[in-house]
């Protein structure tokens, strides 16, 4: 079990993971960026991004996943998402009141529209993706260590 964590799974799983994991990541980014146009949004897209890294970790072992997104980077992105969301709120406060939609609205159904809503989506997706990945790695590494004893 713990050896499986170090080395990853079989060749079939590794090949299919290599082909699909980038598409999963891109789908998460798409859902985040189009959160104000179509169903989805920051939370769902962030969880899909976290799932792509978890997919990588389950198939290739923890070293390959940590090479892409280390623990320090994950906590950095999570804190950056939180601070970005608060910054959007405070910038709105400077222009009028808390969470004021101070950017221009644009025309509907375009990617660059709806003012601060896409920025909030990106901030929340950073937070959720990095945070859930950090929780998963913490729980899995704890389990590996307890199995080794």
């Amino acid at each position, binding site marked *: 079990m713990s050896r499986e964590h170090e080395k990853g799974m079989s060749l079939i799983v590794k090949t299919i993971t290599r082909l699909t994991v980038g598409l999963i990541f891109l789908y998460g980014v798409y859902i985040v960026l189009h959160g*104000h146009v*179509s169903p989805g949004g*920051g939370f769902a897209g962030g969880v899909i991004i976290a799932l792509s890294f978890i997919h990588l970790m389950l198939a290739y072992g923890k070293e390959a996943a940590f090479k892409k997104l280390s623990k320090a980077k994950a906590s950095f992105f999570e804190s950056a998402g939180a601070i970005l969301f608060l910054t959007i709120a405070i910038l709105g406060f400077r222009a009028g009141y808390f969470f004021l939609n101070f950017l221009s609205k644009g025309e509907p*159904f375009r990617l660059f529209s709806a003012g601060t809503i896409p920025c909030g989506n990106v901030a929340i997706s950073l937070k959720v993706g990095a945070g859930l990945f950090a929780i998963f790695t913490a729980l899995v590494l704890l389990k590996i260590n307890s199995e080794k004893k």
Partner: protein
Amino acid sequence: MVELYILLVFMILGAVVAIEVKDLLSSVVAVGAVGLGLSIVFLVLKAPDVAITQLVVEILCLIILIRATLKKDLPFSTSGRWLFNTLVICVFITIFLFAAIKCLKDLPEFGHPIMRVASTYLEEGLKKTGATNLVSSVILDYRAYDTLGEATILFTAVIGVLAIVRRIGRKKVTDEDTEVKENE
């Protein structure tokens, strides 16, 4: 409406199976079936945002649960005071159903909400926020305070998990622990 009832019966059956099955892995699979049914219910009720979120979070929870329960024989306590337990459960379910009949009578009928505030959002949401997905315009513009609170809760939860699980604060450093540290 018929497909809704079929899905509800399916979910209730899945939940009963998840409780009654002796094998932990089968129980986790049954929980996953319940979550998938709930996601399809959200789709039938025309809430694609919630359906996507439910499906994705369900997958994440299943992965964590399977990682936590696989190859681990947790004992089940099936013996004991089952008569007393069953009686207590029946009494509490009766009280709950009675209170529900009394309290939920005044709620609006299923499928006919009051829409006092929501109708304003539906009419003016596109004009005021510019977002065509009205759910996102509500959670990130009208009700952004709630989202800030939710983000704070998640942040605190992550910090809490990382603080409990980290290796530095743990006591009882034995020889095995130092070996594990050197290996990593």
